[in-house]
C-alpha cells in the first residue's frame, strides 16, 4: 500500500479501524482518479488537486466517524457522489480526504403503498429504475448524466432534470434525506420531520438549505424518493426552422400551452445546428436552410400523451415548423444522455479535427432575455477562439425548467482541447466564464440553473447575484462547520472564517 505522505500514519490507522483496510485507498491511481470531474480542468496542474487519500464507507455511522475524525485532525473532507458534476463540487481544492459514496448503493425499501423508495445515495438512477420498472414505477430524475450520476450527486448539486417540467427536479423528487453534518451529528431533513411527506409547514424548510450544498455542509447518506407510474407513452417530436426567430416564438407557444403531459421543450440555435451537422452527422444530417431546431417531449398515459401530442404538433405547424420525421425525432431524444459517453471532437480554425472535451456554461434566464444573452455569450466565445485554437463554440440551447415557460436552462457548449491548456489559456477561460456569468446576472437571471456556480470565474459573482442572501450563506456555513473541514475553498466560503485558523 502506498501511503500518502501528508496524512499521518495515525489518521490512516484510525480510518482503517473504522472502515477496514480495503476501504481506505491511498494508492496514486485511486487518488489521481478523484482529482477532477467533467468540468473544465487545468490538466497541466493536475497534481494540485490530488487528494491525500480516499475512503469508501457504506453506512451513515461510518461517514459520521470519518467526519468526527476529520474534525479532530482538521483535515478537509470532500464528498464524491459519482463525480459527474459540472461545477467542481467534488474537486479537492485543499487535498485532504475524498469520501466516495459509491458503495452506499443499497435499495433499503420500496414502499408500493406510499409510492416512495429509500436508498443509499450512492445508487445510480438508471440502475434504480431497472428495479422499479418491475413494479411499474419510475424515479423520473433525468439528467444528461442519467446512466452514470448518483442520487447523492443530485442532492449535492440540486440537480436539473430533462423532464423536470413534467415531474419536477431533484429538489422536488427527493422527499427527505439523512445528512451527516460537519460536526458528525446526523439529522434527517425533508418537508417537516416526516420522511415521506411532500408538503409540510412545520419549521424552516431545511431540505432546501442542504439541496445544492456542493459538499460544503456535510454528507448526505440516505434518501427517500418520490415515485411515479412508469409512463405508458412517450412523444418526442423534433422540428426544423429556417430562422431562429420562428423557433424562438414556437418555443414560447409550446411551453406556455398548459399541456398536462408536457415534459419539456428545447430550442437549438444556429451555432448548435452547425455543430450538429459537423460533429453529430450520424443523427441530424439537415439541409443548409435549417438554422434552428425545436424539440418537445411528453410523457404519461397513452391517451393523454396522444391528445397533448396533437396539440403540440398543431402549435409547431402553425408557427412554420417542419417535422423531422419519426426516425430522427425518436433517435435524437433517446440519445439525450450521449454527452457523457461519446468521444468528442472539435475543429481548429483551419477545420482540422482535434480531440476536445465538452464544457457547458449554464444559466437560468427568463424567456424575454434569451436572444440578448445568446448574442452576448457567442461574442464572448468568439473572442476566446480568436485568441486560442484550443476553444471551439459548439452552440447554445434553451430548455424549459418548468411548465409555464417562465425561465429556461440556457447553455453554451464550448469544446476545449485540454491537452493544449497552459496558464495563459486557463486564465483566458476563467475570464470568459466570469463574463458569461456576468451577462446572466445583468439580465436578471441566475448564474446556474443546473450545474452549480462554484467554479473559478463564475464563483466571483455569486455574492453579487445573491446579495444579502450570500451573507446568510456565510453565517450558516460558519455555524454548521466551525472548523471549515467540509469542502473548504468552495463558493468563497472561506471568508466566513476570516482571521481564524481552519482546515488547510
Amino acid at each position, binding site marked *: 500500500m502506498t501511503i500518502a505522505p501528508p496524512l499521518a500514519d495515525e489518521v490512516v490507522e484510525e480510518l482503517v479501524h473504522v472502515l477496514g483496510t480495503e476501504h481506505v485507498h491511498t494508492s496514486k491511481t485511486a487518488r489521481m482518479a478523484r482529482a477532477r470531474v467533467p468540468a473544465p480542468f487545468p490538466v497541466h496542474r493536475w497534481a494540485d488537486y490530488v487528494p491525500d487519500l480516499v475512503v469508501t464507507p457504506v453506512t451513515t455511522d461510518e461517514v459520521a466517524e470519518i467526519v468526527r475524525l476529520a474534525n479532530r485532525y482538521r483535515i478537509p473532507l470532500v464528498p464524491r457522489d459519482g463525480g459527474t458534476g459540472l461545477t467542481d463540487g467534488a474537486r479537492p481544492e485543499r487535498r485532504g480526504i475524498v469520501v466516495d459514496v459509491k458503495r452506499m448503493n443499497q435499495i433499503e425499501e420500496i414502499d408500493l403503498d406510499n409510492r416512495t423508495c429509500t436508498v443509499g445515495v450512492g445508487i445510480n438512477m438508471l440502475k434504480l429504475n431497472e428495479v422499479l420498472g418491475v413494479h411499474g414505477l*419510475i424515479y423520473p430524475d433525468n439528467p444528461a448524466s442519467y446512466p452514470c450520476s448518483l442520487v447523492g450527486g443530485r442532492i449535492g448539486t440540486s440537480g436539473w432534470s430533462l423532464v423536470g417540467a413534467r415531474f419536477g427536479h431533484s429538489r422536488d423528487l427527493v422527499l427527505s434525506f439523512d445528512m451527516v453534518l460537519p460536526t458528525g451529528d446526523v439529522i434527517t431533513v425533508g418537508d417537516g420531520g416526516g420522511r415521506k411527506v411532500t408538503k409540510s409547514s412545520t419549521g424552516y424548510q431545511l431540505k432546501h438549505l442542504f439541496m445544492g450544498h456542493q459538499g460544503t455542509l456535510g454528507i448526505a447518506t440516505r434518501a427517500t424518493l418520490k415515485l411515479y407510474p412508469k409512463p405508458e407513452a*412517450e*412523444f418526442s*417530436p423534433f422540428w426544423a426552422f429556417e430562422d431562429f426567430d420562428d423557433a424562438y416564438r414556437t418555443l414560447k407557444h409550446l411551453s406556455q400551452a398548459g399541456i398536462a403531459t408536457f415534459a419539456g421543450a428545447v430550442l437549438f440555435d444556429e451555432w448548435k445546428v452547425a455543430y450538429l451537422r459537423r460533429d453529430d452527422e*450520424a443523427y441530424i444530417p439537415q439541409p443548409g436552410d435549417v438554422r434552428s431546431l425545436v424539440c418537445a417531449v411528453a410523457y404519461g398515459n397513452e391517451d393523454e400523451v396522444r391528445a397533448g*401530442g396533437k396539440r403540440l404538433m398543431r402549435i409547431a405547424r402553425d408557427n412554420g415548423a417542419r417535422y423531422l420525421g419519426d426516425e430522427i425525432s425518436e433517435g435524437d431524444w*433517446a440519445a439525450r444522455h450521449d454527452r457523457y459517453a461519446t468521444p468528442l471532437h472539435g475543429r481548429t480554425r483551419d477545420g*482540422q*479535427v*482535434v480531440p476536445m472535451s465538452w464544457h457547458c456554461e449554464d444559466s437560468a434566464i427568463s424567456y424575454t432575455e434569451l436572444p440578448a444573452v445568446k448574442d452576448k455569450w457567442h461574442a464572448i466565445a468568439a473572442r476566446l477562439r480568436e485568441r486560442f485554437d484550443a476553444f471551439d463554440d459548439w452552440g447554445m440551447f434553451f430548455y424549459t425548467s418548468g411548465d409555464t415557460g417562465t425561465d429556461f436552462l440556457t447553455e453554451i457548449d464550448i469544446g476545449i482541447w485540454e491537452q493544449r491548456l497552459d496558464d495563459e489559456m486557463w486564465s483566458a477561460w476563467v475570464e470568459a466564464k466570469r463574463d458569461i456569468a456576468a451577462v446572466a446576472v445583468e439580465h436578471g437571471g441566475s448564474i446556474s440553473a443546473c450545474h452549480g456556480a462554484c467554479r473559478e470565474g463564475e464563483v466571483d459573482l455569486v455574492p453579487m447575484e445573491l446579495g444579502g442572501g450570500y451573507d446568510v450563506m456565510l453565517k450558516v456555513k460558519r455555524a454548521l462547520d466551525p472548523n471549515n473541514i467540509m469542502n473548504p475553498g468552495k463558493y468563497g466560503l472561506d471568508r466566513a472564517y476570516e482571521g481564524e485558523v481552519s482546515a488547510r
Partner: protein
Amino acid sequence: MKGYRYADEHEPPQAKQVTETTITRFEHVYEVDPDLMTEHVTQQTFPNWDTLRIVHSRHDHLDWMHRHWAGTVISGEQILRELDEP
C-alpha cells in the same frame, strides 16, 4: 453462405460526399471527411463488420432507452396524418 474474406472487410464501400465536411459509406452512417483528420487525429483502420456492429449496437441502445422510460413511443407522423383528417 459467404465466408469471411479479409480483403472485403478492409475495403469500405466507396465514399459519397454529403456535405463539405461529411461523407457516407454505409446507409444512414455519416462520417467526418477523412481530409479533416490528417493532423491531430488520424483515422484507424476498421473492418466493415465492426463499423456496422457499432452502429447496430447504438440502435439497440436507443431502443432500450425508449423501453426503459415508457411502454410505447407515439409516432409524430401518425399524429400529423390525424391532424389532416377531416
